[in-house]
């Protein structure tokens, strides 16, 4: 065994990491540097920073990764140091706490009891009357809780009531909880994912698009099942503020519809550990156009946005380029028309009106019959197996905090010493927290014993 007389002789690195000075320094540094990411907008592209801040500041932003401050190398280093410091301080304190915890507070002398903060002494000028002592002990027990006793060599007895000794561990629970929260966050980010899904009504998908700031690359995350949006609703208050966003979703696993649920902003759907949150929506126009040939043959094409619709027999392909929901009271659409030769044309159509066009040398007539808006729901997709670890840590944090500040280690002693002249009664008490309340309780016991002694006389 190495000698552990003082920590000054130890490894200087250990000394550095066990110092509370470092903890206070890190707390202050974390508080100050955390401001940066609230002032500089996060998650923009490098170009935006260059334009907004100029080349000199841009260099610093790029070097210190200030576009993603809270995941930058130096911020994570600070958090790592903070965790290390927390672990070292805790370990360093452990022997001291163990000593406090293991110490048996009944192993004391009457002299010690005469130095305790709260104390009161009675001298009874008669030998100890056992029924009187029993009565006093009954009062003591009623107020202080169960008693232990120890006989001293001279025949006197020390009775002790103790509570809340375990509260010394609250501090460890509290600090461990912070590490548990960190662990949960790390575990979640390693094993889970965050993504998004845009779904038209009626559409389904079996993958999500990974959310990654600062990157334009699209990465697909397979879900292992399919999700379909059956309908999307949006409702507004009279004031124009949104009232409800709702998606009716169906989960399809192995060709079977396994779950159906309507999700709201605060009411997501979870399936196989993957949770779908209502996060946004878009309204997508859909236009139906009737095309008629010179011979009188006609076909109605329903053209959704972002898609092309063909009439193969006529060699025509139509697309929706632009949609205005209200032009002088009617919807208007700019329609793209391509023919087999590869030539394309574009024209504006209004609902209920028609226009003549030429494609591949032949004349056609195009008429917009109707325009409808279809909704596309935006879902946030998340899998985070670490979230329960985080909640465990949070619970521990609050419980630990309450223990550290409000559960006191209380010790109360009653010394009964019988000498030649009579009996000495010595009541002493000590609490490491909430001393005012303890003093009150102590005085209550004191007056209860006073009463018993008074009656006995």
């Amino acid at each position, binding site marked *: 065994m190495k000698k552990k007389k003082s920590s000054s002789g130890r490894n200087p690195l250990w000394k550095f990491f066990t110092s*509370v*000075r470092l*903890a*206070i320094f890190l*707390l*202050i540094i*974390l*508080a100050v540097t*955390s*401001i940066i*990411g*609230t*002032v500089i*907008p*996060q998650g923009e592209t490098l170009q935006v920073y260059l334009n907004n801040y100029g080349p000199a500041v841009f260099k610093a932003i790029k070097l210190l990764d200030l576009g993603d*401050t*809270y995941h930058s190398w130096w911020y994570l280093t600070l958090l790592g140091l903070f965790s290390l410091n927390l672990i070292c301080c805790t370990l360093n304190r452990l022997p001291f706490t163990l000593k406090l915890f293991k110490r048996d507070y009944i192993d004391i002398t009457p002299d010690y009891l005469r130095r305790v903060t709260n104390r009161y002494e009675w001298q009874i000028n008669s030998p100890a009357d056992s029924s009187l002592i029993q009565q006093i002990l009954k009062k003591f027990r009623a107020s202080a809780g169960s008693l232990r006793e120890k006989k001293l060599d001279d025949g006197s007895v020390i009775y002790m009531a103790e509570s809340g000794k375990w509260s010394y561990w609250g501090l460890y629970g509290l600090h461990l909880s912070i590490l548990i929260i960190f662990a949960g*966050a790390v575990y979640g980010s390693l094993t889970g994912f*965050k993504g998004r899904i845009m779904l038209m009504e009626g559409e389904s998908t079996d993958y999500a698009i990974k959310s990654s700031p600062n990157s334009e690359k699209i990465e697909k995350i397979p879900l292992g099942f399919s999700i379909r949006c059956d309908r999307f609703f949006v409702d507004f*208050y009279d*004031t124009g*503020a*949104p*009232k*409800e*966003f709702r998606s009716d979703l169906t989960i399809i696993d192995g060709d079977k519809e396994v779950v159906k649920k309507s999700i*709201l*902003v*605060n*009411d*997501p759907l979870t399936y196989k550990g993957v*949770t779908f*949150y*209502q*996060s946004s929506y878009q309204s997508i126009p859909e236009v139906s156009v009737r095309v008629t040939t010179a011979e009188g043959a006609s076909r109605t094409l329903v053209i959704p946005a972002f898609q092309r619709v063909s009439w193969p027999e006529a060699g025509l392909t139509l697309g929706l380029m632009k949609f205005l929901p209200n032009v002088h009271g009617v919807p208007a659409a700019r329609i793209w028309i391509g023919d087999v030769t590869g030539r394309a044309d574009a024209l504006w159509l209004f609902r209920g009106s028609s226009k003549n066009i030429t494609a591949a040398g032949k004349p056609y007539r195009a008429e917009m019959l109707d325009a409808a808006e279809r909704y596309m729901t935006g879902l*946030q*997709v*998340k899998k*985070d197996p670490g*979230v329960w670890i*985080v*909640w465990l840590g*949070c619970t521990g*944090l*609050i419980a630990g*905090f*309450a223990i550290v*500040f409000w559960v006191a280690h209380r010790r109360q002693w009653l010394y009964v010493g019988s000498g030649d002249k009579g009996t000495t009664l010595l009541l002493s008490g000590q609490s490491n927290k909430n001393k005012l309340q303890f003093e009150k309780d102590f005085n209550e016991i004191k007056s209860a014993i006073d009463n018993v002694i008074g009656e006995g006389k």
Partner: protein
Amino acid sequence: MTFSSSYLLSITTFIYLGAAALYLIHWVFRVEKVGFIASIITAAGLACQTVGIGLRWVESYQLGYGHAPLSNLYESLVFFAWVTVLVYLIIEWKTKKRVIGAFATPFATLAMAYASFSPEVQDKIQPLIPALQSNWLIAHVITCFLGYASFAVACGMGVMYLMRGGDDSDPGTGLRNSLPSHKVLDDLMHQTIVFGFLWLSVGIITGAVWANQAWGTYWSWDPKETWSLITWFVYATALHARFVRGWQGKRIAFLSIIGFVSVIFTYFGVNFLLSGLHSYGSS
């Protein structure tokens, strides 16, 4: 309808103004009776405000919106004033030191005055947008504001500590010496910070649980979240410095004031100067 919530809450503003003035008079001229009257008036203000907040809740149902009055800047300011007065009155009842009132009630008065008279603050009852339609709203706002209000009172005590002159044994006759002793103030300030810190922690956690339910992330480093964490760091510093390094008095008083500046920034600065998920608070 004259007996409406906005009528009662406007009256509350003036009651708190009167109470703050009386507490000041009580301190400056050391008239015991005035302090007693100030306490009565503050309690009356609290009762009036409680009815006002309750009525506003009822009125929101009559409008067909039906939500607790904790949803926008106006309502949060009113609630902040309410909790501040409540926390102060509990401290006064426990310590019997009315001088603290001169440093605590002004926070409530200012919050109410800002809520009532600033053109930036709309006092209309607004419906809840989908993101706010959650029971976590009540838990989150109540816990956060218990923290904020305690920190306001602790800040007042910090100011008192720095103003208190001479040493504790000097009973003194001057204005500065009529404040509670350094020892008492230091202890009270510490206890109030501990209380506030617990509620701030619970507030941050309930916010995280709610965010996880609404958006799928319990922590997204949005400016409001980050500033609440900065505030948490400041008070954590104060607690550790006191516990382990034995900091007391002046340094803790300064930290208490710095901490409250951080609270103010978390509360207003983020809404008006920065953007983020909590920006609805500015409407």
